[in-house]
């Protein structure tokens, strides 16, 4: 039986249309801003149903919200539901349940070469903020409030120090957009504390295998999930011959390794595998002298699809239409596996897309979606567990029966053995959703979603739900 929720009655004095977190308008003006707690991390606290009012002229809506969120959360609620967890304080300044979430990321560097579609500065955080609004709207129905403590690091600042500072401040749930090594350093530093790291950025397969940690949940897909999604599609299309073109960046090597495993797993054939040595042609004039060499590079290739491994976007787009014979392109460019894309509008996703575009004036990117999913999972666990404790919320997210609706048509949930979010992967090109993996017919004893990424029998991860590494 689902937990019985507490009744909450908004007072008449609040005109409904002044509710500040209704989701329609950009409510950033109503967010309470406090002085950075840790100036060196340029931390910012955003209260999503704020108390702790600061001086200023733009807090009227917030006062209204506080009035009818907090007051029922004290005496009335406590009296109405004696069996519920006791409210820590009956003061409007201390709501019964305040879920404090940290967001930890490095400030994004400028791209090495001009890119008209470079990541926006707020990629990731923008999705987190939309999820915070969603959580706050739900929270007002059950007496829970949410705060997001944003810690964006400049070059040279320590993610370990920033993470410790977040936990010290009560943000034991840390949404992290960090590279794998930094993520592991943070994980080790928080070992033994009531903290869960929600990885939204690092796709490294080692984090789901030998380097998995009991305090990291992965809301980013693994590279293996992405390449498996593409390989399943190729298998379903019976396009079995794959030629790989691999960039020189370490990340490209990892993507290629994952793709090679996917080729084996789904019975495809690798007909060629070459490194790309011609530089970032996709970012340069298309008529450079090197072009002829690149053209010859693909001569005589027997492939249904050329799979490019080019996470930085240096050449993948160039390869398309510059091959000796007409070939399909997929991988990091061309037909791309992704957790999210603006082209998705099924399964109610139009609502999330609209909310996001209206607020941020740009389409939602995969990292935004991964941040949204992580924070929505926190909100869903907090609602169902009726708890604000990082420990209880973290544990609830790993329950076998925990799942969230994430606009993919099926519920998504965490795999307990490696703490990876299982979810369908889109196969997209810029204007079209081409397909969705898992493909029909790829069966699995637990869920078809587990046909994507390292499955339990082959997993190198030795943690299990509830245990420590």
């Amino acid at each position: 039986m689902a937990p019985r929720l507490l009744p909450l009655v908004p007072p008449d004095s609040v005109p409904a249309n002044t509710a500040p977190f209704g989701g329609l308008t950009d409510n950033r003006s109503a967010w309470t801003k406090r002085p950075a707690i840790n100036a060196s991390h340029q931390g910012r606290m955003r209260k999503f149903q704020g108390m702790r009012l600061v001086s200023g002229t733009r807090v009227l809506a917030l006062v209204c919200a506080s009035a009818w969120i907090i007051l029922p959360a004290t005496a009335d609620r406590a009296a109405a539901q004696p069996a519920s967890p006791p409210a820590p304080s009956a003061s409007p300044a201390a709501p019964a349940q305040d879920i404090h979430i940290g967001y930890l990321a490095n400030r994004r560097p400028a791209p090495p070469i001009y890119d008209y579609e470079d990541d926006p500065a707020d990629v990731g955080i923008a999705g987190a903020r939309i999820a915070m609004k969603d959580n706050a709207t739900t929270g007002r129905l059950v007496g829970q409030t949410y705060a997001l403590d944003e810690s964006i690091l400049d070059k040279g600042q320590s993610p370990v120090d920033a993470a410790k500072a977040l936990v010290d401040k009560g943000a034991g749930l840390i949404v992290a957009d960090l590279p794998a090594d930094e993520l592991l350093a943070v994980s080790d530093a928080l070992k033994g504390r009531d903290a869960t790291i929600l990885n939204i950025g690092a796709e490294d397969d080692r984090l789901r295998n030998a380097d998995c940690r009991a305090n990291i949940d992965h809301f980013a897909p693994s590279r293996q999930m992405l390449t498996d999604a593409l390989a399943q599609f190729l298998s379903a299309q019976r396009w079995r011959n794959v030629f790989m073109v691999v960039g020189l960046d370490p990340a490209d090597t990892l993507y290629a390794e994952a793709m090679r495993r996917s080729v084996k797993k789904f019975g495809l054939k690798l007909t060629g595998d070459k490194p790309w040595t011609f530089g970032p042609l996709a970012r340069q004039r298309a008529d450079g002298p090197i072009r002829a060499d690149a053209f010859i590079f693909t001569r005589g290739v027997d492939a249904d699809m050329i799979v490019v491994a080019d996470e930085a976007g240096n050449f993948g787009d160039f390869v398309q239409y510059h091959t000796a014979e007409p070939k399909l392109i997929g991988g990091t460019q061309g037909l791309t596996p992704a957790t999210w894309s603006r082209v998705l509008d099924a399964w109610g996703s139009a609502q999330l897309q609209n909310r996001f575009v209206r607020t941020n004036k740009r389409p939602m990117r995969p990292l935004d979606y991964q941040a949204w999913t992580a924070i929505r999972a926190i909100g869903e666990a907090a609602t169902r567990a009726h708890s604000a404790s990082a420990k209880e919320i973290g544990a609830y997210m790993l329950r076998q029966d925990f799942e969230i609706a994430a606009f993919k048509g099926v519920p998504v949930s965490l795999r307990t053995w490696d703490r990876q979010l299982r979810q369908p992967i889109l196969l997209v090109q810029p204007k079209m959703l081409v397909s969705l993996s898992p493909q029909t017919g790829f069966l699995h004893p637990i869920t078809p979603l587990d046909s994507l990424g390292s499955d339990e029998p082959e997993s190198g991860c030795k943690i299990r739900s509830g245990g420590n590494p």
Partner: protein
Amino acid sequence: MLAGVAGAPASAYTAYVTNEKDNTVSVIDTVTQKVVKTVPVGRRPRGIVVSKDGKEVYVCTSDDDRIEVLDAKTLESLRTLPSGPDPETFALSNDGKLLFVSNEDDNMVTVIDIAKNASIAEVPVGVEPEGEAISPDGTVLVNTSETTNMATFIDTATWKVVANVLVESRPRIAVFSADGKFLWVSSEVGGKVNVIDVATHQIVKKISFAIPAINADAIQPVGIRLTADGTKAFVALGPANRVAVVDTKTYEVQKYLLVGQRVWQMAFTPDQKQLYTTNGVTNDVSVIDVDSLKVIKSITVGAYPWGVSIAPN
């Protein structure tokens, strides 16, 4: 067939079907079971309901942020109602004077006085409000919110929220039993139907569905319709392409009826002899014979049929 209603046989009805992706309403004669007219409306029509007197048809045109009012006979557009942004579904009050609208994009339920053509209340609810249901005695309005995953009970005397009941992921439709004692709520992604005691707000039953050779993830309950005699519930199971028939006393599933793909919303004919289902992916409407529990007809309509409402001619 739309003229000369007087003296028409009791079983002559008109079904109105919204087609979400081609911005039309298909009008079906239930006697011939053919589309007799296709009416262009605003963008992304979804929820649809015929007024109690049968004279007007209300259509949520979500992307135009309004409700269109069509003349049920001429199918001309009469006026529009101020729905609030992104209206998806609605319910009509029992006296037919008020519309309760879900505004999916701003987490509100808007109450519209139809005669005054004005919004008289807005009630803040959960994220992505969806289904609306009014109790038979008119005192309780229920709204489901898809991302908040709750059924919110609202007192219609004060427009205050009196309870929130947490259910499985992505609740869609709420329907009161004829005696008003129970509320049935479908959870699309959670795959369950919850039956809630209206007096105590306790969940009394969680109904699960299992179909051989259909993956559990594909069983996504959306539309619910209860027979007036209180014996049967019909539950549309979305991409499972089936309608479940549930015994409302035992809560056991009696039968799964194969219909079109992505079966979504349903409506009885007023005599309750037939049930029409919208099938989004196959662009058709299935007609179920309620007595024999057989699918007797498939009627091709527009692109991505979503909602259906049926009224006497």
